[in-house]
């Protein structure tokens, strides 16, 4: 028997009892639909995370934080006063600082670590208000300039290093009485900040960009340029009696040849009770969680497939039983056992292909439509710039199809072996 005839006959036989085949196929469709959806979901979210990483650009950078907790060595009785540690625990330096803050001596230590080419300390300032040209004042919290790399812009540019600039989030357009992002570019605002003695002063800054909110949260708050940030910090420190003790939320460190030197720098930082994180470290943790979730979901898809494969075994066993005479006839007329096995395995494969193709198409359709609806204009997640919840990964789809066809083939081997083993005489005697 020619292979093409085996395939054609198998196809014909599959459609002989349509309802039974359809029900078996449905079970496989459920499995392949689930797998397509979950793998697409994982791919989509990871793709989004990747674009966020891409936004941070310079991957030669490492973010350095004080581990803080390490400072609080267990002591008996009251700890001896240490001005540096006191500055470190100064509570005014905002969120995101982990356990503690970096001091000037920390920065010097970092600079001395091998392979560190530049250290850019970040200060976190807490201004009081922002004033629009029409005189209205609003509460203001500022992001740190280091995050500017991750900014997704709806209009204008990200605030740079120099110049008194800032970007505002898209939903702040209302305070300028406009909906057009382009219109606020170039507007001048006043930012008010209090110093340590409670005295308030203002600085002028220009709006240079309008940001969209990324999933990372960057872009949800106004972001100052480095110069503006520094200026605000200087204002807030004014009137400080005694030796001014700078405190930094974190430092952005440039590392030479980060691929090879990453671990060395990190180890050196740990010795100083500091923690170095690359962008990959931060994003990698997120992707690890996403991968884990999508694997768990895929596990459910695989369970559905396992159930479906028993459906195939059952369907084909029934089919073999029903067609005992036909099998006997074919063998009597000279069909080899191998070909009989091939014919029935092929029927299993046909069922597998049908189920996987339908499931994959439905899964892709549902995924793409769902993604368009959820993240599209006006959707529940429409506000998150660049968010993709579902991506088509051709390799994954080929993999899923191949896996299902393989599972179907495996499921078909038991009935096919049954069919191949049939004795033609017994089969022809079978009533």
């Amino acid at each position, binding site marked *: 028997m020619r292979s093409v005839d085996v395939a054609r*006959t198998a196809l014909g036989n599959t459609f002989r009892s349509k309802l039974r085949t359809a029900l078996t196929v449905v079970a496989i469709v459920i499995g392949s639909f689930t797998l397509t959806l979950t793998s697409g979901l994982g791919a989509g979210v990871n793709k989004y995370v990747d674009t966020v990483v891409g936004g941070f650009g310079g991957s030669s950078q490492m973010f350095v934080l004080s581990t803080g907790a390490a400072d609080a060595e267990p002591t008996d009785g009251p700890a001896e006063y240490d001005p540096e540690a006191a500055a470190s625990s100064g509570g005014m330096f905002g969120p995101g600082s982990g356990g503690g803050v970096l001091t000037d001596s920390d920065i010097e230590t970092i600079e001395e670590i091998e392979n560190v080419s530049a250290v850019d300390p970040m200060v976190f300032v807490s201004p009081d208000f922002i004033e629009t040209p029409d005189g209205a004042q609003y509460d203001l919290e500022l992001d740190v300039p280091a995050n500017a790399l991750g900014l997704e812009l709806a209009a204008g540019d990200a605030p740079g290093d120099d110049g008194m600039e800032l970007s505002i989030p898209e939903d702040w357009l209302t305070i300028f009485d406009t909906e057009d992002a382009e219109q606020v570019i170039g507007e001048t605002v006043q930012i008010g900040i209090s110093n340590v003695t409670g005295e308030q002063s203002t600085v002028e800054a220009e709006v240079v960009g309008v940001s969209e909110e990324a999933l990372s949260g960057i872009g949800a708050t106004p972001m100052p340029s480095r110069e503006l940030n520094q200026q605000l910090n200087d204002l807030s420190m004014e009137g400080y009696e005694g030796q001014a003790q700078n405190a930094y939320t974190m430092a952005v460190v440039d590392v030479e040849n980060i691929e090879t030197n990453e671990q060395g720098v990190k180890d050196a930082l740990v010795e100083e009770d500091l923690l170095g994180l690359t962008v990959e470290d931060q994003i990698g943790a997120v992707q690890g969680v996403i991968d884990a979730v999508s694997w768990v979901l895929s596990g459910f898809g695989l369970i559905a497939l396992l159930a479906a494969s028993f459906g195939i075994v059952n369907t084909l066993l029934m089919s073999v039983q029903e067609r005992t005479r036909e099998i006997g006839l074919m063998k009597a007329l000279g069909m080899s056992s191998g070909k009989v096995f091939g014919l029935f395995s092929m029927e299993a494969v046909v069922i597998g292909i049908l189920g996987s193709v339908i499931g994959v198409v439905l899964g892709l359709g549902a995924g793409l439509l769902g993604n368009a609806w959820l993240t599209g204009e006006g959707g529940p997640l429409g506000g998150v710039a660049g968010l993709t919840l579902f991506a088509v990964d051709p390799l994954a789809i080929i993999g899923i199809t191949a896996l299902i066809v393989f599972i179907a083939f495996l499921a078909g081997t038991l009935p096919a072996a049954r069919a191949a083993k049939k004795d033609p005489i017994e089969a022809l005697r079978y009533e």
Partner: protein
Amino acid sequence: MSTPVLETENLVKVYGKGATRFDALKGLTFEIHEGESVAIVGKSGSGKSTLMHLLALLDEPTSGVVALGGEPVTALKPKKVSQLRNDTFGFVFQQFFLNPNQTVLENITLPLKIAGVGKSERNRRGMEVLEQLDMADKAKNKATNLSGGQKQRACIARALVNNPTVLFADEPTGNLDTATSEIVEDILFGLHRDQGITLVVVTHDEDLAAKCQRRLMMQDGEIVTEEHGATGVHA
């Protein structure tokens, strides 16, 4: 005398073991020559079908030898035996064994499909055989829609489509009325006469047996008598 196309030597078939042991064939030795027509006759349970299955290589003897064209087949691999069956033999079974969902043409070209013949060649040869049996107009009909006689003719067409050397027929007229039986007998003996096909017929039917050149009378797994000379229309 021509070369024996099929020969057996001390052919034994035993079913079961111990208490249920049953000797279906008890050491048969005979020859069937090319172009002969042979009837295997005997009471029910005498071992006729068992013998035919062994001759047709559908089953293996417990002991003894079946030789095809002078070569013993017992030692051959199953795949080779399948191929031999497909090339050399045509079968008309006691029941029709037609696939009801397929057309007559698809049914009768099954041996060619198994042999790996391409579709157009299959259909050409199938139509040729159907024309020979006056069935060409039924080629596209579903097999279920045929009368009993037409079904038996379709079965004969299927047996002939691969130009067999030997045609085995187990009770070919068992299911048919007298008139239709005669038509089927005419076809079988016509083929034997015109194409020189070797005919091996298992039957209860005295008329059909009488038309064969040789009759092997079986009883309890043994050939008790052997008659020569057709007493029917063909001498």
